[in-house]
């Protein structure tokens, strides 16, 4: 039962991380762009999300969003019940929250890429998207990976919070098992070991990724 919870935790975590990386890249691009509506949206996004507790946001999205949609649609004369799948709601919310943190990580990484590297890409005739894809992004990973590793660690532990929306991930299963067997110490300790296991594996993977990203530069 804990194993199933572990699988679900990892699945939610990975999906959320993908969303966070996507949003992070988009957010960093927006924040670094010329002043515009897009930039203001990105600024609001990062300040707002980083300023409100995750738990609150999860509850807001899971309980608030369906109600909001239902109210809006009934005002327009439609009536249907929106029932969010807790898995999807979970990883979307977590991804949305950590996208704000990833935005700052990517923004810092972009600013850390030496100007000359970008200049020589433009000088040789690359347009912005080619320069980004071929030159800037590969170098951004060097500076982004330590920060992203951090985001991932916090994110995977934040998935424990989505137990509140009845998703049977590791935390909720441990809690249920602890209650049913009256052996809270055993099950919560087991769950802790599992979370720790995830982080230890993550550290190893992150190390490999950093070695790859820093090829030609330095030994990590």
């Amino acid at each position, binding site marked *: 039962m804990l194993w199933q919870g572990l699988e679900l935790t990892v699945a939610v975590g990975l999906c959320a991380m993908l969303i966070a990386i996507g949003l992070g890249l988009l957010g960093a691009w927006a924040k670094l762009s010329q002043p515009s509506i897009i930039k203001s949206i990105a600024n609001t996004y990062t300040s707002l999300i980083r300023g409100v507790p995750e738990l609150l946001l999860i509850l807001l999205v899971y309980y608030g969003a369906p109600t909001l949609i239902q109210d809006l649609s009934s005002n327009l004369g439609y009536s249907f019940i929106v029932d969010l799948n807790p898995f999807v709601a979970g990883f979307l919310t977590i991804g949305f929250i950590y996208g704000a943190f990833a935005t700052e990580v990517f923004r810092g990484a972009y600013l850390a890429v*030496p100007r*000359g*590297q970008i*200049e*020589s*890409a*433009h*000088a*040789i*005739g*690359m*347009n*912005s998207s*080619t320069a980004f894809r*071929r*030159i800037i992004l*590969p*170098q951004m990973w*060097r500076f982004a990976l330590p920060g992203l590793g951090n985001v991932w660690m916090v994110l995977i532990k934040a998935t424990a919070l989505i137990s509140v929306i009845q998703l049977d991930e590791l935390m909720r299963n441990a809690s249920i098992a602890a209650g049913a067997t009256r052996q809270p110490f055993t099950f919560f300790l087991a769950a802790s070991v599992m979370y720790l296991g995830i982080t230890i594996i993550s550290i190893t993977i992150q190390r490999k990724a950093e070695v790859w990203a820093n*090829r*030609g*530069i*330095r030994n990590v």
Partner: protein
Amino acid sequence: MEAFSDLFGQIPMTINEGTPISLLVENICKRFGSLEVLRGISLTAYENDVITLLGASGSGKSTLLRCINLLETPDSGKVYVRGELIEMSTNRDGQAVPTNRRQVSRIRARLGMVFQQFNLWSHLTVLQNVIEAPIHVLGLQRREAIERAQELLEKVGLSDKLDYYPSHLSGGQEQRAAIARALAMEPDLILFDEPTSALDPELVGEVLKVIQNLASEGCTMLIVTHELNFARDVSSQTVFLDQGRIEEQGSPDNVLDNPQSERLKRFLSGNYRRTI
């Protein structure tokens, strides 16, 4: 060329009649805030010309070079590459901006640029650096790009360093790789921005030799440099910049050995003392 060099300074237009113009710069002005860096510079580079730009730090040499391929946007003035005008317009804030980004990229692909700090892409090996733009900008087949790169890297004496990362090369090797990278685009004109200024003295020679070979092959080049002897040997025309204006220009012999203005005389004597 040698026989013409005396006349060259005075009547370049007639000497070069019939030779296509690679680059025409008309009245370029550029200011950074309140600092006027370029105050109306005009320059003509015919095909096979090697023009060296001299001047003290802050005279605007590098900025001029960077205005030509639009790494800096000139405030006013025109740049023609092989007769094609780089179109500029004015944005809402009254600043000059290139009208068409695609045109700028296309023209940049035809203008090689070699930087003082080399700026080789640090995540790519020497070979990957040289094939990168031919594949992703010109659309060359990988095999073809590799063949071209191998030839060029042999030419600059780096055929044994293909798989090295830039950080594992000496400055001189890095700069030669950067020259090969520029050549791989088969540019109409190459801009050199102080190519030897970041090098240890003993590595300067190997880079200058490569540039000299390019000159003898008829490569059109615009070179910002502090190496006066090199300028004398290699250039068909020497331009001395001071405070954003062209102070003197002509054949290297004329400019370097027979300076007219006080400013150039002072510059040359200062340099002379330094090299002793």
